[in-house]
């Protein structure tokens, strides 16, 4: 995780701009990435600047799925001003219910962040092996 992301501690200038690129939430575009107590490098919290009650838990997918290799299309990279995938940070949205053994993450539609210009998008991968509700726990 890039330092520019880690230290985006609620400062508006550090917000990432999703444009209309968070599916289901076209009316909110600016989000800050914040530390979660106990979250370490694996978990972050993403909070809307416009709607403070709107938040998501993000996780670093490779920490759980070492073989996760999302292929971000050239058009999606271009939409956040990135020339190649090495420039961007990929995180996925976690769904952690009170019964955390049911926790899932969305590997089908990761979030891509360009830390150089604070632009971000959610992308939908064409790879059908990746699930929107991939369980973190085997059960």
């Amino acid at each position, binding site marked *: 995780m890039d330092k520019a992301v880690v230290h985006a501690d609620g400062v508006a200038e550090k917000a990432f701009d999703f444009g209309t690129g968070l599916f289901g939430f076209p009316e909110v575009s600016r989000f800050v990435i914040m530390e979660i107590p106990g979250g370490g490098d694996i978990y972050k919290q993403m909070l809307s600047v416009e709607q403070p009650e709107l938040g998501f838990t993000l996780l670093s997918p490779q920490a759980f799925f070492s073989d996760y290799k999302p292929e971000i299309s050239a058009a999606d990279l271009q939409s956040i001003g990135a020339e190649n995938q090495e420039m961007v940070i990929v995180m996925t949205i976690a769904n952690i219910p009170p019964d955390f053994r049911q926790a899932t993450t*969305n590997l089908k539609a990761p979030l891509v962040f360009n830390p150089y210009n604070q632009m971000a998008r959610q992308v939908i991968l064409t790879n059908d092996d990746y699930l*929107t509700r991939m369980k973190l726990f085997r059960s």
Partner: protein
Amino acid sequence: MLVLTRRINESIIIGGNIEITIVQVRGSGEQAVVRLGISAPKQVSVFRKEVYDEVVAANQQSVQPNMPHLPGALNEVRPDSGRLGSDEPDPQSK
């Protein structure tokens, strides 16, 4: 909703730069399958609607504004706990 009738190899144009062509029609009635060809600028995203809807639903169900249970839960939901991940069998699950 605008409804148009098209034959095979006929197209519609949307917004001057998106063209949708009827490529193939197979079967009839409930079993009918239509193959569409789509030409659009590469910055225009094209998804099967069920995939798009699934992503929207997953996002909406993942909204977690205040997460009092999280710090405790995160200590449990860790890749190094040996119970997580997709690619290796759990050595302690026997």
